[in-house]
């Protein structure tokens, strides 16, 4: 072939090939930003999809479509019949499951999500107390776009280190890991608000319990190294010599803000399954609800010890609570797997061993600053 024909050939290729793939014009796409899953009475799945409207003249920024089918993809193709635009899940941000769905088992639904290359691994998963359909279709004043609202709310709280992160990557990771169980935030709608009420404890892929946001904070304390996040702690004031009067509250409550924290789990006895959990906290005091002399080092130290005791007992209570349900969101199993050679740990094996385990909690708390005034 002469060079001229060669060049012509290339130009021809460019022209011919560019028309071959499906073109996706933004205006003709229905971008799904949130998906919700409910169970219907006859065990089918009710899928609710919130679409972003790309139309400046539209009254509502979003529309919600729902359809019932045996599988989530089946519901999607049914929902296509109700939509003027082709449904696309590339912009999916949040997937919500009703409590009922998660109690029945979650993995088939998350599996389709992770199987689809169009869906990002960084979408947030969450559990809704009550009906997801109602939450997503409710009209709330002040919230123009429910799905964006939920996404931003989750993102803000996860980035602000209030609750453990629950992206699909992390949930799937923990599900497939032998010694740790996933957690997902629980949401509740109503009264014109959407609130994060805590975290769902999940054993394998079934929800078995719930913890509140305070406990979620402790969970995060155990699992991650993190920087920000504040917590309110109430302790018995009888041991402090605070003058008693009618007006002051019964309990001494302090709000501390963690500057850095560090949680470390060690297996100290592999035959008795004894773990040691060490938590180190460097904090600053934000608020105290009673007059307390923060100038005196002795008193500050006493406050520290009391807070330590409080956190220790709270952590023990949380671990006990999780153990009762059989879920291990802390990853004690992973510590066992990494410390015991040839353990061949599987999820089933670990869940049998887990109720027998014991944990010693050691907390080391330090108040570095008490603000700009004393």
């Amino acid at each position, binding site marked *: *072939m002469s060079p001229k024909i060669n060049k012509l050939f290339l130009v021809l290729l460019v022209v011919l090939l560019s028309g*071959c793939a499906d073109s996706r014009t933004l205006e003709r796409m229905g971008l799904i930003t949130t998906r919700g899953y409910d169970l219907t009475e006859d065990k089918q799945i009710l899928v609710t999809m919130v679409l972003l409207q790309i139309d400046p003249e539209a009254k509502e920024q979003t529309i919600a479509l729902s359809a019932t089918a045996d599988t989530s993809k089946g519901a999607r193709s049914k929902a296509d019949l109700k939509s003027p635009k082709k449904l696309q899940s*590339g912009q999916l941000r949040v997937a919500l499951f009703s409590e009922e769905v998660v109690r029945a088992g979650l993995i088939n639904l998350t599996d389709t999500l992770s199987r689809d290359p169009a869906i*990002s*691994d960084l979408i947030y998963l969450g559990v809704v107390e009550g009906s997801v359909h109602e939450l997503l279709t409710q009209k709330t004043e002040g919230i123009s776009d429910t799905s964006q609202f939920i996404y931003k709310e989750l993102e803000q709280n996860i980035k602000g280190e209030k609750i453990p992160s629950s992206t699909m*990557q992390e949930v799937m*990771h923990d599900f*497939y*890991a*032998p010694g740790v169980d996933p957690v997902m935030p629980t949401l509740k709608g109503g009264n014109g608000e959407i609130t994060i009420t805590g975290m769902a404890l999940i054993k394998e892929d079934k929800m078995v319990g719930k913890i509140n946001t305070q406990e979620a904070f402790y969970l995060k304390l155990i699992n991650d190294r993190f920087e920000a996040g504040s917590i309110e702690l109430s302790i018995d004031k009888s041991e402090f010599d605070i003058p008693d009067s009618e007006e002051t509250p019964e309990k001494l409550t302090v709000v501390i803000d963690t500057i850095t924290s560090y949680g470390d789990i060690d297996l100290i006895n592999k035959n008795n399954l004894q773990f040691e959990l060490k938590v180190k906290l460097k904090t600053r005091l934000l608020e105290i609800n009673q007059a307390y002399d923060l100038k005196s080092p002795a008193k500050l130290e006493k406050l520290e010890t009391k807070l330590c005791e409080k956190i220790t007992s709270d952590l023990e209570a949380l671990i006990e609570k999780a153990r009762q349900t059989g879920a291990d969101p802390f990853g004690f199993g992973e510590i066992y797997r990494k410390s015991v050679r040839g353990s061949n740990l599987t999820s089933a094996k670990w869940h049998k061993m887990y109720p027998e385990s014991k944990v010693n909690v050691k907390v080391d708390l330090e108040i570095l600053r008490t603000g700009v005034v004393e």
Partner: protein
Amino acid sequence: MKVLIEPKPQNMINTILLMFVIHSMQVGVGIQGFQRIIYMEAKQDAWISVILSGIAAALVGFIMVKTLHSYKNSDLYGIQYDVFGKWLGNLLNILFVCYFLAAFHMVARNYIEVIQAWIFPEVPSWLFFFSLLSLVYYGLNGGLRTIVGVSFFSVVLALWLILLMAFPFQFANWDYLLPVFEASIPEILMGAKQMTFTVVGFEIIYVLYPFLKEKDQVHKYMQFGLGFTTILYLAIMVISIAYFSGDQLERTIWGTLSLFKIVRFPFIERFEYVAISFWMLLILPNLMLYLWAATRGLSRIFNKKEQKVSWKLLVFLFLTLLYPLNRIQINMLDDYFAKGALFLIFGYPFLLFIAVVMKKKFFSKKGGSANVPKNK
């Protein structure tokens, strides 16, 4: 067939470029999903298998260069012809041509499967193959220097992709690398064996050697290329083990691409689409060089002009690629190919080297032959 080759000076390439050629040949489709097959064998010690395979490649690379050094300026085809005679030698030559064609086939098929699984499920395969093969033809028409240029740019332009591995770091949990050495030695070796499909590619030196300018530096740059690849594979393996949990990694077909799945920029939210499209740049030198090697082989054996062979081979490959295969069949084919490659690339070079050494001794006793001029 002439054993010795005297390429025209304008067709020669600088030896330093060999480094890029070797690296770009090794990195191709295997890297997209090698983690899980190694992990299945060696579990969290898979990274040790990667190191072992790197050492094996370095050793084989050394033997290959040694073999080539025994001749003044010849390639695999010439050496086999010289050592084993006309019939057996040419039979082996045909075998290697078949290997190169099979490698081409596997690379093209695996890459197009990735495109179809991730980006364009509906676009027919023939269209992809056709466009890919047109590009290969373009490179081949430009001759070896164009092809080596493509490999150079495929390495340099793809280097920034490594930086993106920083994203999975935020999800990495290094506990998953422990306990070290839990896998038994046979398991680790099995893992290293599974690396075959991913590390092969450096055998191109067998065909490329006569075109390199500075022969004394060949070995140095060969090892640089191999070493860089091993480090890259090791880094990806370690990150993958820390990022995925065990079963999750075993279920992930294209681990490296899944690592890209969490790369997110404000302007590109789904980075894997860019990565997969960009991968064509990494695939192209593989395809071009494999086809070039096969073309060289046939044109040397049958004394034909390269240009007349190459397009016939391309048409032949296009036809073979049209045969539809599903994921499981492709996996099986990958396995067969890996088995063949294990023997041809990691076993046979030692045999050839011994044969060459013995022949040299035999002839030096008799006072040398016309075909073996260089006594080291």
